[in-house]
């Protein structure tokens, strides 16, 4: 019988620090995509509230309760960080290994992300627990503000190395400028 070893998505690419910005892997045991069926949005929200303590957030938002996360991930779809029972209410797909996630944080983090993401990430418009789907360089990502100077970036696992590479280039360019 096999004994399978679990490996992280980023290998030894993380953590990473350049200048005043750091990147660290976000480890999440499970992640499920929840897509409510027609007319079941409220029922799903109620079921999630009961099971996770979190209802469905609006488009572009994330909710957190304790360790649990419920985050909008696209048209008709959310991700939740723990197993949920939604039989007949929503399509639930295991994405625990579909996404890799990292935290990018530090004083220069907005300047780093501004080199890569075509989004208005100013703190006045993109606040804590705001989330968006977009591109980082050419890599499709889901980005969430987690703090005044901190963001979480989720990426399809197979592109984890490309994500780190693009961040690394942007971080190094910024550091080489001195103050930007």
């Amino acid at each position, binding site marked *: 019988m096999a004994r399978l070893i679990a490996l992280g998505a980023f290998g030894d690419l993380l953590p990473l620090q350049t200048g005043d910005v750091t990147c660290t892997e976000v480890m999440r045991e499970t992640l499920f995509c929840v897509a409510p069926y027609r007319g079941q949005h409220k029922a799903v929200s109620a079921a999630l509230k009961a099971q996770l303590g979190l209802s469905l957030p609006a*488009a*572009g938002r994330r909710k957190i309760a304790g360790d649990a996360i419920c985050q909008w991930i*696209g*048209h008709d*779809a959310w991700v939740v960080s723990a197993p949920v029972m939604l039989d007949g209410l929503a399509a639930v797909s295991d994405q625990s290994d579909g996404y890799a996630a990292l935290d990018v944080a530090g004083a220069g983090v907005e300047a780093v992300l501004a080199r890569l993401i*075509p*989004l208005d990430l100013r703190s006045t418009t993109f606040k804590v627990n705001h989330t*968006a*789907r*977009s*591109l980082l360089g050419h890599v*499709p990502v889901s980005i969430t503000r987690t703090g005044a100077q901190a963001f979480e970036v989720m990426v399809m696992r197979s592109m984890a190395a490309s994500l780190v590479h693009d961040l690394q280039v942007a971080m190094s360019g910024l550091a080489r400028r001195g103050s930007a």
Partner: protein
Amino acid sequence: MRINCPHCGERDRREFYYMGDAVAVTRPAPDAGPDAWDDYLHNRDNPAGDTRDLWYHEAGCGAWIVVARNTLTHAVHGATLAQKAAS
């Protein structure tokens, strides 16, 4: 160019895939006949001015949207979810 996604707000054109005239929403019946299918698939008003076309927010939320737009000025007047436009 920036397009208003009903879910995501105004986003850069680079996040979108273009499909073409929103005529694609009104698919003929399978037996509608060659002319109906020719019009659906091929023939276009191709307006120099206001038009409605279909875009897919591929690098964003994944919604198909119908965008009201001007082909002469590139002005974008608004967008709706194609799902709503179709149903």
